[in-house]
């Protein structure tokens, strides 16, 4: 396997853009990435695109639609889906095409326009689609699942309402410094703690919104990267994880879980991160910047444990002690996180990689972490999907 580097990164800002199409937004992200990587579209030898599930047939052929904008060149195009880990799935496909020696350059792209409000079901056959059951029989939006897990954690680890609010307060300070963020207001503890409950124990500002956004990265065989750039970011590992039997998590879409744990909570994410540590020889103690999936304040705390940054029940202390701040032991979500951006399903995992890359290149301005050498982007998708990408300079 050859080493692969990230040549260029590009974003379309996150927000709500009712007049844009997913093609418009993806085009902006790709154009920015090409420019950043100092590479021509004609030199891209492989495309991996995240499927945009709300876009009908076109959304399932994102790569083809975007390629036609830049000029079709006949290269392999793969469209992939892994729920909110879609972006990592695309990145890994692009990575493997180069690492295997088949091509020298590849594009990974994801773009998404979220439907308004909470995400609903897409089919009506309960025997095929667990989503139908959870919506029709129980009325369970995604945050409900996280609330059930959070309540368990509060009971087990003594997580307080203040801890949940503290996550938002900290991340809002970073989001305010990020020009691509959708929410740039700095919140106080009081503002978060007096916001309305959505699903207890979560309040409005302790859950991420759904957004529109697009992100792209251009990958290149490390040996050939110097032709284009003087600041390549090397990929130490990019992995995908799926759930393990006996995972006690009440997993989104499902209405049941085993009572007796035979695997770690969020086993798909545990698996993805462990694979990445093993492949790269890098451990949590080596990581300077961590972009984790803060879909809710519970995720922020739980992922520190799931990915091995602390022991069981220790995440709250890390947060309270400032160890996860920009100047702490590991800078967690210096981008501002999902709470400042909102989820854009097919795009968010690639966006996390873009943010991590910019940190390693030292281009993050006011939210810049001091001299980071290693960064990790961790994703989480429903039905047991996860991906981990470790980057280094």
């Amino acid at each position, binding site marked *: 396997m050859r080493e692969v580097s990230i040549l260029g990164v590009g974003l379309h800002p996150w927000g709500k853009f009712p007049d844009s199409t997913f093609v418009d937004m993806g085009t902006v992200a790709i154009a920015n990435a090409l420019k950043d990587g100092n590479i021509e579209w004609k030199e891209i030898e492989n495309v991996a695109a995240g499927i945009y599930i709300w876009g009908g047939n076109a959304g399932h052929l994102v790569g083809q639609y975007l390629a036609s904008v830049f000029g079709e060149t006949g290269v392999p195009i793969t469209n992939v889906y892994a729920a909110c880990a879609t972006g990592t799935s695309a990145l890994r496909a692009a990575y493997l095409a180069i690492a295997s020696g088949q091509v020298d350059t590849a594009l990974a792209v994801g773009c998404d326009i979220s439907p308004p*409000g*909470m995400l*609903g*079901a897409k089919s*009506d056959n*309960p*025997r095929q689609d*667990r989503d*139908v*059951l*959870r*919506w*029709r*029989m*129980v*009325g*369970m*939006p995604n945050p*409900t699942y996280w*609330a*059930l*897990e959070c*309540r*368990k954690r509060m*009971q087990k680890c003594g997580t307080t309402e203040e801890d949940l609010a503290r996550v938002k307060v900290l991340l809002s300070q970073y989001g305010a410094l990020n020009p691509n963020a959708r929410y740039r207001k700095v919140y106080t503890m009081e503002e978060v703690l007096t916001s*309305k*409950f*959505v*699903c*207890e*124990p*979560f309040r409005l500002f302790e859950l991420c919104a759904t957004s529109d956004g697009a992100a792209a990265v251009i990958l290149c065989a490390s040996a050939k990267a110097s032709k284009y750039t003087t600041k390549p970011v090397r990929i130490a590992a990019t992995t995908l994880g799926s759930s393990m*039997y*006996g995972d006690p998590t*009440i997993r989104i879409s499902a*209405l*049941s*879980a*085993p*009572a*007796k744990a035979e695997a770690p909570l969020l086993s798909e994410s545990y698996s993805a991160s462990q694979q990445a540590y093993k492949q790269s020889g890098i451990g949590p103690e080596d990581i300077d910047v961590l972009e984790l999936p803060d879909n809710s304040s519970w995720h922020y705390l739980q992922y520190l444990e799931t990915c091995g940054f602390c022991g069981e029940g220790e995440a709250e202390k890390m947060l309270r002690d400032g160890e996860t701040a920009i100047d702490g032991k590991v800078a967690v979500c210096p981008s501002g996180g999902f709470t400042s951006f909102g989820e854009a399903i097919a795009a968010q995992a690639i966006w996390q990689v873009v943010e991590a890359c910019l940190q390693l290149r030292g281009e993050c301005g006011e939210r810049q972490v001091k001299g980071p050498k290693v960064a990790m982007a961790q994703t989480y998708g429903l039905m047991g999907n996860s991906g981990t990408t470790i980057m280094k300079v």
Partner: protein
Amino acid sequence: MTLSSGKVIGIFYAPCPSLLILLRRDTDAFQEWLNDNHFLRLVSRLFFILLILLARVFYFVVAEDDLLGFEWRRTLTMDKKDSEKGKIPALPDLFTWSEDCVRIRSAKCNSCGTYFFPEYHEQHRPGCSREGVEKVLLSNTGELASYTTMYYMPPPPFKTQGDITPYIIGLVEFPEGIQVCGIVVESESDKVEIGAKVETTTYTLYKDDEGRDVVTWGFRVLNK
């Protein structure tokens, strides 16, 4: 292709599951005892076939039409019903009215021990032969493992008679070793806590055009 006698008997037995359980136990005992005696084996088989035919006649003629004035069929099918007293499930095969209580329909793999819900979304331990899956009814009572209060109405296809917020969703752990989510109903909010004992019941989502209650399963917290 020939059908094994097991399959033939399976077909005969199929409509009367409780009888099947009784007879199979006896068959096994007989088979051991009569292993070397071909004549007795033949007699015992004929005896069973006669029994099955009688059972079928009883099941489809006597019980179906309730000729003896008893609700025979209810008894024979372990009181499992798909609807009760003007209530119909919003989706089939998820729970059942059984012996005056509501029970969630699950399934268990006898090879790897995995319980899953619903019974048609099969799950197994890696390496399992996936043989011997049987449908089971979960206990009527369990313990609350977690819960949340919902303050926003979910979008369609969740359908209710108007806005039902705030409502509580609970995660209930059953003695069989499986946790199932459901709406918590008719409970005092200060009794809703982790570890609380609950029983499975139904919750009316809305009324259909014929005025029947369209229901889902729900959990009621039991007073200590």
